[in-house]
């Protein structure tokens, strides 16, 4: 008799692999992005089964939500640029020179070898040896928060997280530079029902984002997940045209980004020094 949860795990695993294959095989780019978003959400579900709710939240909010929004924006822009806006199905937009079959086969063979090596390493690894959980549990009283993942992320490995914030800042600067002078595709018209929904959802998302940040101290949740919710607020504002970006506001936004990183720099090291060595 197989336990029902094992059947569930197997089905979920098969679904994930099938969705990954579908992402690569679908011809329609819009369908590809939608399938990718479904893939992210289903793998977040699998990560809950691996008892990692924090990571599942982060994947659902950042890895799937924010990435999905970015992908859809890019697709919208590509259709606008190539003059195919409003067409239901855009085929592959970039037609490149065909690659010889031999090269494809060689690529596939090398990828198979790398994957095989990974599988051998995975099977040969010592099973569930003692990791860092003992060290973390010992140091928990010093951290000032109750939830171990938040403690590791914001207290014991604060420098790591600081660098992560700097990477985000660098990405924002790079995107701003790359997009400079690029013509904007017009935002799609969404209709009255959407406006009403956005008006209702806006305050709620702000509350949920703040709640995630606050609850991160003792339960799954945290700064990045909350931040992604706040990013969703910005997107809603842009889509409802409640806020239309003006050139004058750009400097203000830059200042806010740098200030945020500086604030984290000031607050981070004080927490970082409380962490145990070796983490």
């Amino acid at each position, binding site marked *: 008799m197989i336990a029902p949860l094992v059947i569930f795990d197997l089905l979920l695993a098969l679904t994930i692999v099938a969705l990954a294959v579908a992402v690569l095989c679908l011809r329609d780019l819009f369908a590809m992005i939608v399938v990718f978003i479904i893939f992210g959400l289903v793998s977040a579900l699998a990560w809950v089964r691996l008892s990692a709710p924090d990571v599942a939240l982060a994947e659902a909010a950042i890895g799937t939500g924010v990435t999905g929004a970015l992908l859809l924006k890019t697709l919208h822009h590509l259709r606008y640029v190539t003059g195919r*806006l*409003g067409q239901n199905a855009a085929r592959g937009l970039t037609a490149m020179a065909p690659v010889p079959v031999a090269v494809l086969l060689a690529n596939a063979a090398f990828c198979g070898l790398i994957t095989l090596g990974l599988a051998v390493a995975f099977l040969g690894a010592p099973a569930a040896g003692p990791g860092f959980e003992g060290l973390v549990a010992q140091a928990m009283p010093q951290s000032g928060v109750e939830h171990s993942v938040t403690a590791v992320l914001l207290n014991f490995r604060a420098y790591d997280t600081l660098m992560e914030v700097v990477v985000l800042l660098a990405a924002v600067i790079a995107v701003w530079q790359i997009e400079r002078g690029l013509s904007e595709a017009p935002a*799609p*018209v*969404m*209709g009255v*029902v*959407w406006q009403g*929904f956005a008006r*209702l*959802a806006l305050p*709620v998302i702000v509350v949920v984002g703040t709640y995630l940040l606050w609850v991160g101290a003792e339960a799954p949740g945290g700064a990045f997940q909350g931040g992604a919710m706040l990013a969703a607020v910005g997107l809603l504002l842009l889509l409802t045209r409640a806020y239309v970006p003006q050139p004058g506001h750009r400097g203000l936004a830059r200042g806010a980004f740098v200030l945020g990183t500086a604030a984290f720099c000031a607050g981070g090291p004080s927490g970082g020094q409380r962490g145990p060595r070796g983490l």
Partner: protein
Amino acid sequence: MLEGFGAILIAMGAVFFVAGTVGLLRFPDIFCRLHALTKADGLGLALIALGVALLAGTAGAAFRVALVWFFVAIASATCSHLIARYARHGAGGVP
């Protein structure tokens, strides 16, 4: 007793979701498919949320489940409207 009742509600919700999925796969055009999906979203999700709220135990958790149900219902209704609107008018949104 309460747990059994919750499990029955969740199972009933799952039946509605299966029906909605069959409709999604079998119906010919986009409006029929949306029609099938809203059945699953409306009644199926409500039944599952009710079952989960019964299983949740504390009142706070049940309240959060109710909030989740409310907002998913509103969001799915808005999504269906947007999809139907796009299918009928195209991206320009001119009726």
